[in-house]
């Protein structure tokens, strides 16, 4: 038996064994006090109390009515409230900086994406400048989204969650701040490099390696506060969000370093590395950060713990194990060893395990409480995001099947799928998280609730047009390419109306982002009407003498 077959067999046996071990140990209840860890995110009297700083006073009242009208949790221990306030305050500078930068990147990235989309059906539009050509503005869009908006927002949200989850103050915030600065320099320099034609030529890895150093060092620095804060933690259990954040912060610098190491990769091996990276940056960086936020905010807003804490452990390890090996499905039909493709297809199907674990947890927590979505702006974005996570994951598994992939590979269908994951899931969850977090950071409420609604409906409507249009267009394109009797040009022509629809959807999404950014900066500069002052937390039952000066308005 040769080496490759033994490796293949070994991996397969290991996967199945690992799965059975997990299932068996769960059946025996070996994972211990799941319940205790699940309520870790609540203060002692807080269960049943809703929390959404983005909601208006009326919305908050309705939300509480919808969830648990009898809750007496408005009476809270002063020391716990003070701890929460100190935790929020300790991270507010670094979180504020990261989220502000992320919003700037979001707007720039949307504009770049919209230009790229328009260019696909207006090929002679804005062609005089080299930096505006489709082949440069498209990677500029992708990199701004991935390393500008998504990473910065994810880091900001993670930095805010860490002290809350560990019930202590964030230690070493300055490392994260320094990391964020290096990271921002890297994204800026990388964007300029692509615009000038200095690209490494690999998708997701376009930035020249000299610039990549900034992201590797910046990314590692961002992880420091987590480890320093973990040493100070005041909680007995590590909540599921902590695992995702910690693992993500460990994985990213390693992935990025290996992938960008100059002179190491070659030819077809570089292609397998390319998709090992590009899929892992989604599975081991964005997905963990997005799920960490969803696992915190859904139960927090509703005031009830997640459905099954033990299941989340299975979800975490199976996600890490299976997701990390699926990259090869991007090369089905390509000049790569077939065992590699087979492993990736098998693991893509196995991804159903973590997806179901997450889906059960997140959807069953919300089930029966859908009225809460009407009243909570945070929840509206995040619950929609987690639904799209389930959809994107199931779609991804199916797309890895050889028969489906033969149609969808090389078409716009894949582009639509990529947006379902990074936009429908990750970006939506980040929007919701930012709506929750910013009032805490700024001690100022969102001034215009209608702008939150406008943002929501614009991006939802825009994205629906984008995704549905491009998915159908891509599928028909793929079918046309597979029919030897249809000239290739017909497969191009038939996509035009769908590409135009994508531009319409993209324009609505961009408009939504502009509304969001405007609202964000109105709030950041504390313009606009102050609705309730800064309604931060429910009132403690004793006079807040023990509270720090900054939190006195709570």
């Amino acid at each position, binding site marked *: 038996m040769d080496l*490759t077959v033994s*490796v293949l067999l070994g*991996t397969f046996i290991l996967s199945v064994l690992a799965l059975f071990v997990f299932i068996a140990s769960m059946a025996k209840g*070996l*994972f*211990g*006090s799941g319940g205790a860890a699940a309520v870790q995110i609540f203060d002692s009297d807080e269960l049943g109390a809703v929390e959404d700083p983005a909601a208006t006073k009326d919305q908050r009242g309705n939300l509480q009515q919808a969830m648990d009208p009898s809750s007496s949790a408005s009476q809270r221990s002063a020391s716990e409230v003070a701890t929460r306030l100190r935790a929020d305050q300790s991270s507010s500078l670094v979180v504020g900086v990261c989220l502000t930068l992320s919003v700037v990147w979001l707007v720039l990235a949307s504009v770049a994406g919209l230009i790229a989309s328009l260019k*696909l059906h207006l*090929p002679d539009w804005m*062609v*005089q400048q*080299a930096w505006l*050509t*489709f*082949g440069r503005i*498209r*990677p500029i869009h992708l990199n701004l989204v991935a390393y500008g908006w998504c990473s910065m927002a994810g880091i900001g949200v993670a930095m805010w969650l860490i002290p809350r989850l560990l019930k202590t103050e964030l230690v070493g915030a300055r490392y994260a701040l320094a990391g964020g600065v290096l990271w921002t320099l890297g994204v800026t320099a990388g964007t300029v490099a692509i615009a000038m034609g200095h*690209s490494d*030529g690999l998708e997701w890895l376009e930035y020249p390696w000299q610039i990549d150093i900034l992201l590797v060092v910046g990314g590692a620095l961002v992880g420091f506060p987590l480890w320093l804060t973990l040493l100070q933690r005041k909680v*007995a*259990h*590590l909540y599921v969000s902590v695992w995702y954040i*910690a*693992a993500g912060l*460990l994985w990213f610098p390693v992935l990025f370093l*290996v992938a960008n190491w100059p002179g190491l990769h*070659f*030819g*077809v*091996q*570089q*292609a*397998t*590395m*390319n*998709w*090992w990276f590009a899929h892992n940056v989604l599975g*081991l960086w964005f997905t963990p950060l997005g799920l960490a936020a969803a696992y915190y905010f859904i139960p927090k807003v509703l005031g009830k713990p997640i459905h099954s804490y033990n299941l989340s452990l299975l979800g975490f390890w199976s996600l*890490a194990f299976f997701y*990390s*090996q699926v*990259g*090869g499905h*991007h*090369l089905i*039909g*390509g*000049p790569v*060893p077939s065992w590699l493709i087979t492993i990736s297809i098998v693991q893509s199907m196995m991804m159903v395990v973590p997806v179901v674990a997450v889906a059960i947890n997140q959807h069953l927590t919300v089930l029966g409480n859908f009225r809460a979505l009407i009243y909570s702006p945070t929840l509206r974005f995040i619950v929609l995001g987690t639904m799209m996570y389930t959809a994107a994951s199931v779609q991804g598994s199916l797309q890895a099947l050889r028969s489906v992939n*033969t149609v969808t*590979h*090389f078409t*716009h269908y894949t582009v639509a799928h990529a947006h379902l994951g990074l936009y429908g899931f990750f970006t939506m969850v980040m929007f919701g998280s930012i709506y929750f977090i910013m009032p805490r950071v700024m001690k100022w409420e969102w001034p215009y609730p209608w702008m939150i609604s406008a943002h929501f409906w614009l991006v939802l409507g825009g994205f629906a047009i984008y995704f549905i249009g491009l998915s159908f267009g891509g599928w028909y394109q793929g079918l046309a*390419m*597979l029919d030897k009797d249809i000239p*290739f040009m017909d497969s*191009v*022509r038939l996509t*035009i109306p769908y*590409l135009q629809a994508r531009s319409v959807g993209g324009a609505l999404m961009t408009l939504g982002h502009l509304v969001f950014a405007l609202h964000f900066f109105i709030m950041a500069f504390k313009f606009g009407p102050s609705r309730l002052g800064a309604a931060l937390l429910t009132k403690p039952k004793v006079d807040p003498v023990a509270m720090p000066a900054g939190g006195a308005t709570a």
Partner: protein
Amino acid sequence: MSFGVGKYEMDEMRLVVGAMLILSLATALLVVMPYMLLKDTQPPPGLKPYNDQQLIGRQSYIANGCIYCHSQQPRDVAQAPDALRGWGRASVAADYAYDTPHLLGTMRTGPDLFNIGARQPSRDWHLGHLYAPRAYTPGSIMPSYPYLFEVRQGTAKPDEVVVNLPPAFAKPGQVVIAKPEVRALVDYLISLDHTYPALKAVDDMAVNRREAR
């Protein structure tokens, strides 16, 4: 650090060790194994290394993002009719012996280019097509690349390369001159010719040789 938590509950050490083990396993499978299997791949006898001009052109292919619409990896005819479209036989790893960075591509908004040099060897066609794609392929959505050309009234200097556009698209009294970058790009495109005999066997030999050691 343990706070006396249950034997099977997550703590920091378990998290770090588990996370890194899993990542190493994935890296071993998708990065290290292909590295070991492919590093001794010999270029097939029919494949020539790129010359300096072609390498400059390849850099231009990267800089202008051609890979975002064009693949360079024909699929097997059992899977897709790539060969019937004149895109060539299914490619094998050895065909990419000189291709770093790899330019396999993920989109076919335009056709596969792995054998564009064999399919369309005319330099004039490529230069004109890059300047005015729709003059050659009606309905094409490829961008035009005017910044790779110089348009001037009058005549060209003796050492300049003039683009011969189809009569309907040529403007009287105006010459379109190809800048050095686009000339190199066309050199690269024309070098994309992998029509030498199918090398599946050679490729497998390289792999097997490696394993036999």
